[in-house]
């Protein structure tokens, strides 16, 4: 794929969405790092030497701060998709539809070479929807079990063992899904290598939009045309 330098750009992520994304990925990164520090084998931990104790102390503090940050951003997002106009349009486009299954099968057969072209997809592709709702599922589990382990003295020991097992399982799943599913396919992707800059500037190029979100592209063009027409008619009226 080649991108024209002066290509037309569309808005992919608004400022609020980008800020939510940054908080989410910075704190998730810290959580994965500081969490898996507990899973290290002895020889790995021994490499910290005499600094180990200090590192262990800060590991706990950072994990809790990041945990609180991630919980807050999740709660904010829940409010965002209910209350704000922008959020409501986001969740409306994100809800799974029957067409997602069709798109999935069509896209897979295209990638394997059984079809001539990619299906025209909506604002959010089936894989993006799966990823998005996985975060709901995962966050629910890690936040609940994490809170339980933070208030450990109030829970039966066995419940804590269960919480621990879920926390670890979910964290492992999330870490792998983020690396393989998200970083590899959204960022480390030949179309956008070395990264998809949409998370920084919030923009998507026309060519990429056409290829990956064909239906949304058509919808956006219509909307923009309608807006222009409205503006023009308003201008005429004023004149």
């Amino acid at each position, binding site marked *: 794929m080649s991108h024209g330098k002066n290509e037309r750009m569309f808005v992919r992520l608004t400022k609020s969405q980008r800020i939510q994304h940054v908080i989410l990925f910075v704190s998730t990164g810290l959580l994965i790092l500081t969490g898996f520090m507990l899973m290290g084998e002895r020889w790995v931990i021994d490499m910290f030497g005499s600094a*180990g104790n200090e590192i*262990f102390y800060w590991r706990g503090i950072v994990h809790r701060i990041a945990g609180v940050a991630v919980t807050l951003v999740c709660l904010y997002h829940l409010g965002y998709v209910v209350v704000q106009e922008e959020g409501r349009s986001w969740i409306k486009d994100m809800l799974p539809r029957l067409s997602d299954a069709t798109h999935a099968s069509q896209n897979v057969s295209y990638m394997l*070479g059984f079809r001539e072209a990619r299906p025209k997809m909506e604002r959010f592709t089936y894989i993006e929807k799966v990823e998005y709702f996985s975060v709901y599922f995962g966050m629910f589990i890690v936040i609940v079990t994490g809170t339980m382990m933070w208030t450990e003295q109030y829970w039966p*020991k066995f419940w*804590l063992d269960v919480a621990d097992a879920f926390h670890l399982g979910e964290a492992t799943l999330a870490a*792998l899904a983020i690396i393989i599913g998200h970083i590899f*396919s959204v960022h480390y992707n030949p179309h956008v290598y070395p990264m998809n800059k949409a998370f920084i500037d919030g923009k998507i190029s026309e060519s990429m939009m056409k290829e990956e979100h064909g239906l949304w592209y058509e919808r956006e063009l219509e909307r923009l045309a309608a807006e222009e027409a409205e503006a023009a008619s308003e201008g005429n009226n004023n004149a």
Partner: protein
Amino acid sequence: MKTKHTARNITVALFLLIAFFILFIPTTVLAVDDENCLMCHKYAGLGRYAKSEEQKAIKRIFYVNEELFKASYHGKLRCKSCHNGVEEIPHTDVTNVDCATDCHLNDPSTGRDFSHKPIVDDLKKSAHGEDGAKSENIEDLPKCKDCHSNKPYQISVDKDLKSMQFIKVCNECHESEEWTNRFYKHMFYRAQTRRPSKQVVALCSKCHADKEKMERHDLEVVVGFKDTFHGKAIVYGDEDVANCLNCHASYQMGFSPHRITSHTESSSPVHPNNKLENCSQAGCHANAQEAFAKKGKVHPSNVVVERVDEGGITISEEEQEFQRWVLDMIALFYKILIIAVVGGLGFHRLADLYATHRERKIALRAAKLGRHSS
């Protein structure tokens, strides 16, 4: 005549030389070693090969490094205070060291001879002693030396300004600097450090993680502790989390490692009735609830052990099995989920790369055709 003179001079010189050695060189040795043990034991090569109980050759070293010994906990004691017999050479009359003997050192708190006998008696009655142990295999039980060795004090007075000032104050009244140094080290070694948690875990694991040994005594092998939060924190060097002794022989609850008892004894801090108090020790889980302390195992093991105790069983065998089954199921659930998700995403990613590769080829061909036609 002249030769006779020379011979006499040489004799005198030799005499003086020997006298010099006797008078001056050994003075430092003689000062502590009035039993003259170091005459032989100062030689680093002193030792022999012997047979162990398992008929294996072992090296026995009889060398004593005077400097290290003097700096050690027992550095002020005479050799014969601990090594009884030793009247004949070679020492065929020597008996094993018994820590319960009076060591002819004045105990300033009582004025009597000091002895470790009370501790040895405690140990005898504990789970680790001949009288307290439930097992018949008493030869496996730990002896004093299995846990304790006569190490030099790990406290450096000369590098620490505060310590140096402290000792200067002592020396205003007390004459022997060597004594104040030793006394200071003794007090502050006790005050500052107990055995680091890493060492405690390693020490207990020597036996309690030994499957064969534990089977001989019908005891649970401790395998799960290293994976617990406490276990990991200890590996990082955190001294604030519980090691084996903090729960099984907590000083706060009036225990000492020497009085350790089986968890089935009603007096044990890890007995169901005492667990809540044990977990909520100062500095630990202050607001611990009943269920936190009771329902579950702190360090899971592979074996389900029958728990017989007077105060009722906290977790029955079935419950233990059920708990393990639930945890295994959660792990299995995530294993399957991870394989499915990672496999699915990986497949999708590879397929996408394959598609991109095809698109590139087509684009290249189109570009070539374009060049040809123009």
